[in-house]
Every structure is written in structure tokens, then in C-alpha cells.
């Protein structure tokens, strides 16, 4: 998945797939029974959400389904390994449930935060305008709710941005602290107003401001283009 390079027209669909994958991985870490989604590109028009290729969507349908419109995956693939397909489907339903919760636990917010960060990271890595804004940037951004770690985004030496749910010892360039779970949930959904929420101390930002300005702008751009899989 990491080395897959989506075509220009499938970046938003690919971001959805990567975001779902991040959510499923974090759920597994939290001992929630789900199938690990490992998306793969199948040419410029199709994306498989699983390694076994039993849940394959066209780009358009994946965006539709994430946006809440009815859309079906490739039937032939679905029937190839029906049990596994059912597992993938249940995984999608479980992810949706996390989004739809009225009140969230820290664990649920972590799932959504990692999913949201993965969407942004997909744009950082593959969206040409976003990439152009990040030329010369590197570093690590840590996200917290109060003192509890949620996840991080960092740039490796080969200029590839990635998310992590591990709180490593590597010194961050930026520390973002959400004041409570609800604000962190809004953050995961890309609903933070960078000026208002900072001024009202809902989000405390420390560190290299220019990096978070760029990252924030790109994540808002991504969230604008990519429907949140709230209505899967």
C-alpha cells in the first residue's frame, strides 16, 4: 500500500481507502474484532480494500459509498471469498459505528484521528499541489487530547509522510493538544477552525508553526474533497 501511487483522478478514493485501513489497524490494536483492510490499487479506476481482492470498488463508487450514497463493490470479487468479504463488510460497518457515536471514548477518538490523519497524509504524498506546498518540509507532528497521545504524522528521509499510533521518543516539531475528546473528534473530522479554536484555547499548538499551517491547510483541503466515511 505504501508504495502504491494513485492516478490523479483517484486520489480522493485512495485517501478514503487508506483512511479506512488506518481505522481498521487501530481497531485491531485495540483488540476489536475487525478485518485488517489493506488497500491496493487496481489500475487507475479500481481500488481493492483487501489484500484478497474480495472488496473492490471503482473510484467513483468508493467516494459515493463514503459520502453516504448507495454503491456496490464488484460482485464477482465479492463472491470469490464470501466469508472474507463478509468480514470486510462488517469491518466497514464497525468503522461507521465509531463515526456515528454521539459520545466518544479516547480509544474511539484515536481510531478516527488516525483515519483522518491518513487522509491528509495521502494528500501530502500524492496530491500535486499539496506536495508542492510541502517542498523542503519535514518533521513530526504529535497529536494529544489533554496528556493522552492520539497519533502522529511524520516525514521519513525519502520525503514520504506517514502516520503512526506509537509515541516514539523522536522529538516532535509540533505538539497539538486538544482540550477535550469532543474537540479532538472535531479535529479528526477536519472541523477545527484554525483561527477560532486556537484563540479559544480549544487547541494548543506548540512548536514550528509554519509546518502546522501547511499541514492544516492540506488536511482541510483533503477533508473538503474526501467524504468522511461517516455514512458507509
Amino acid at each position, binding site marked *: 500500500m505504501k508504495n502504491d501511487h494513485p492516478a490523479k483522478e483517484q486520489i480522493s478514493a485512495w485517501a478514503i481507502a487508506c483512511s479506512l485501513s488506518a481505522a481498521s489497524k487501530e481497531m485491531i490494536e485495540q483488540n476489536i474484532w475487525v478485518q485488517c483492510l489493506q488497500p491496493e490499487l487496481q489500475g487507475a479506476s479500481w481500488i481493492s480494500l483487501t489484500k484478497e481482492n474480495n472488496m473492490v470498488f471503482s473510484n467513483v463508487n468508493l467516494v459515493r459509498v463514503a459520502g453516504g450514497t448507495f454503491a456496490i463493490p464488484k460482485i464477482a470479487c465479492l463472491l470469490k471469498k464470501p466469508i472474507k468479504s463478509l468480514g470486510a463488510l462488517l469491518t466497514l460497518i464497525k468503522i461507521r459505528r465509531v463515526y456515528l457515536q454521539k459520545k466518544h471514548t479516547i480509544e474511539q477518538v484515536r481510531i478516527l484521528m488516525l483515519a483522518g490523519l491518513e487522509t491528509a497524509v495521502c494528500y501530502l504524498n500524492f496530491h500535486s499541489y499539496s506536495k508542492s506546498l510541502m517542498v523542503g518540509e519535514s518533521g513530526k507532528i504529535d497529536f494529544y487530547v489533554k496528556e493522552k497521545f492520539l497519533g502522529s504524522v511524520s516525514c521519513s528521509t525519502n520525503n514520504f509522510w506517514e502516520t503512526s499510533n506509537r509515541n516514539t521518543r523522536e*522529538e516532535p516539531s509540533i505538539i497539538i493538544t486538544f482540550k477535550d475528546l469532543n474537540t479532538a473528534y472535531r479535529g479528526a473530522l477536519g472541523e477545527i477552525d484554525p*483561527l477560532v479554536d*486556537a*484563540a*479559544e*484555547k480549544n487547541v494548543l499548538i*506548540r*512548536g514550528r*508553526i509554519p509546518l502546522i499551517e501547511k499541514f492544516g491547510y492540506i488536511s482541510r483541503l483533503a477533508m473538503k474533497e474526501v467524504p468522511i466515511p461517516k455514512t458507509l
Partner: protein
Amino acid sequence: MKSNSELIFQRAKRVIPGGIYGHVAPAAGLPDCFPHYCKKASGYKFEDVDGKEWIDFMCGFGAILHGYSNAEIERAATSQRKMGTVFNQPSEVMVELAEILVQRIDFADWAVFAKNGSDLTTWAIRVAREKTNRKYIIKAKGAYHGVDSWCDPGLGGRIPSDRQEILEFNWNDPDHLSSLFKKFPSQIAAVILTPYHHPSFQRSEMPTAGFWENVSAICRKEEAFLILDDVRAGGRLHDGGSHRFFNFTPDLAVYSKGLGNGYAISACVGKAEHKLASAEVFLTGSCWNDAVAMAAAISSLKISEREGVAKQVLSKGKYFCDQLESVAKKQNFPLLMTGPPSMPYPFVEGDFNLFKIQEFCRFCAEEGLYFHPHHNWFISNAHTFESIDHSIKKASLAIDKLSQQSN
């Protein structure tokens, strides 16, 4: 209980995008300890809307050169205000202001006026394009020249063509500059530069020996304009313009911040040979003939000349920077004041991610010092040596607290 700052902000966010935007947005500073709104200011102090008094080292982000509410300037402004502000025709003060600038700035033969730096940096590059019939403009990487789409530091609202004709070179690297002229022969209209490099969120860089000589020679040889963006530094390095401080001659220079001591005005001055071209480039604005701001600017310029304000703020700034660095050094806090001492940018050695400077400014805020962690500071002529000594003592306390926290 919410503070007045917070209550006003709650109203603001309903009717103003972001509540407060631009360089004064709380997010750009330290929203957890800086006030959002100011009530009044006088001399080198201001009072926020919650009644806390601050010793100020930002001077309205540079717009205040002689101190807040300078009595002489206020008298001049009030006197003009009694007669009116904006009329159908310009007022005589416009001519008087142009005459003073032409007399004060050695290379200047004419002057035009607007309200902000951006108005005239953008206009200046258009004058260069008009005169040379060339399209490219060169600027230094990371330099700020205003809010227009060819140069603004924001990310939104851009289209690719906005910066197609803007080239960038590394500050203090004349070879890099030369290479751009080679790459685009006879196509470069102007090089626009600030007198020294003051990029955001980074230490300031003074020009290296020979830099301005080289840049001037390249522009002369290539018949391109050399435009000095003196919006931020004007009046704080030399009363006759910052080019005098660094000993070079631009074709055009733009001033704003220090010019009106808080009254909105900007000016562009130029050589006689560019006067006709400048008249071809349309220039106007609803309130750009504002006689009150012009009267304030005249008064401000007179004070600068009479009292040698640039020398004074440099000398006070040097005292401030030396003392602060020395106190910090004694307390093992590697603080460096970069750039000219009248407008120093604070930088903590090894603090690429800015955590240390942010913490330092947080502790200083507790002591009532308004030190910005991300922007150069400004010394005004209202700062006294006593006020500086007092501030250094407070900064020392802040460093103490910072060290205790680190231990």
C-alpha cells in the same frame, strides 16, 4: 469566568472570519497568554481590555516609531482633522509630505502615497514592468512583501499563474541572483528586496559584506530595477532610508510602518528617470488622500530628523539586546538577538522547532513583557534606558522560571 478578551472574541467570531485574522491572529502568537484585544496605549506601554498593563516590544508590529500616542504627532493629526480628512481633491499636506521625502531621501525625486506597504510594493513592480517592458520579478526566498497574490505567505486563494513571473534566489547569494538573470536574459524587470532579510519564524540575516554592492551592480548591468521594500525597517536604521545604512542606491523604495506612527500611510519614492513610467501605472484608493495620516507623517518625519530617531532606536536597541543576551548567557539560556538591534529577532540556539522561544515568551508574558516568539520585535523612541533595565530584570526572572521548569 471569561475574560473581556474572551468575551469580545466570542462576539467577533460570529461576525468576523476567524475572529481575528492576519498577523495579529492569536494563533500566530501565544493565544494562551497574550490578550486578544488592546484597550489603550501610551509611550512604550499598552493596556489590554482586562486592565493588564504590558511593556511593549512590538510597537504595533512596527507601526509605532515614536511611541504610542506621541503628543506632537497627535497634535498635528488633530489640527488637520479639524479641517477634514478626505476631500474631493488632495490637500496641501500631500505636497508638503512629498517635498519632505524628496528632500530627506537622497535618491528620491518624487513620491506617491497609499495606505499599506502592499499597495505600493505591488505598484512598484508594475512601474518596473512598465519602464522595462519585461515581466519577471526576482525576490529573496522567504521574504515578505505584502498580501498580494504574487507574494503573500498564506496558502489559500492561489492559482498557478499568480507566481509564474516571480523568481526567487537565496538571500546573500549574488551568484544565485546572477544565474537567474542568465536563465532569463533581458526578461527581468526588477529585483525587490528588504534591506536585510527578515523571514518569518526564522532568525534575521544581515547582508554580508559586498552583498548590496553586488546586487546593485547586477541590476545596473542588466538594466533591471532595484526596488527597496523598506516598509518594515524604514526609519529604524537611518532617518534617510535604510539604503543609507547599507550604502547603496535603489531605483524605488517603499515605506510604511514607521512613517505615520500608527496612522495608515505608505509612500513610494523614486528616481526622476522613472517618473514618467510611474505616471502610466494607475494608482488610487478610496481614502489614499487622507490628509490626517499625511499630517501625522509630516510630524513623524520632522521628529525623526530633529531627534535623530533612527540612531536613538539603534542605540537603545543595542543596549537592550546586549543586556538581554548577557543576562540569558549568565543563566545558560542561549538567546541570540539577530538582525538590527532596533528591530531584533530573538532566536534560541538549536531551537529550530521554536519550543524554547515560545516558552521564554510565555514566562515573559507572566512578567508583563510583550515579547513575540515568531516575529521580530521593535524598539520605539519612547523606550527609555530605565524601561529597558526594568524589562531586562523581568526577563531575567522569566529565564529563572524557565530553567526551574526545565530542571
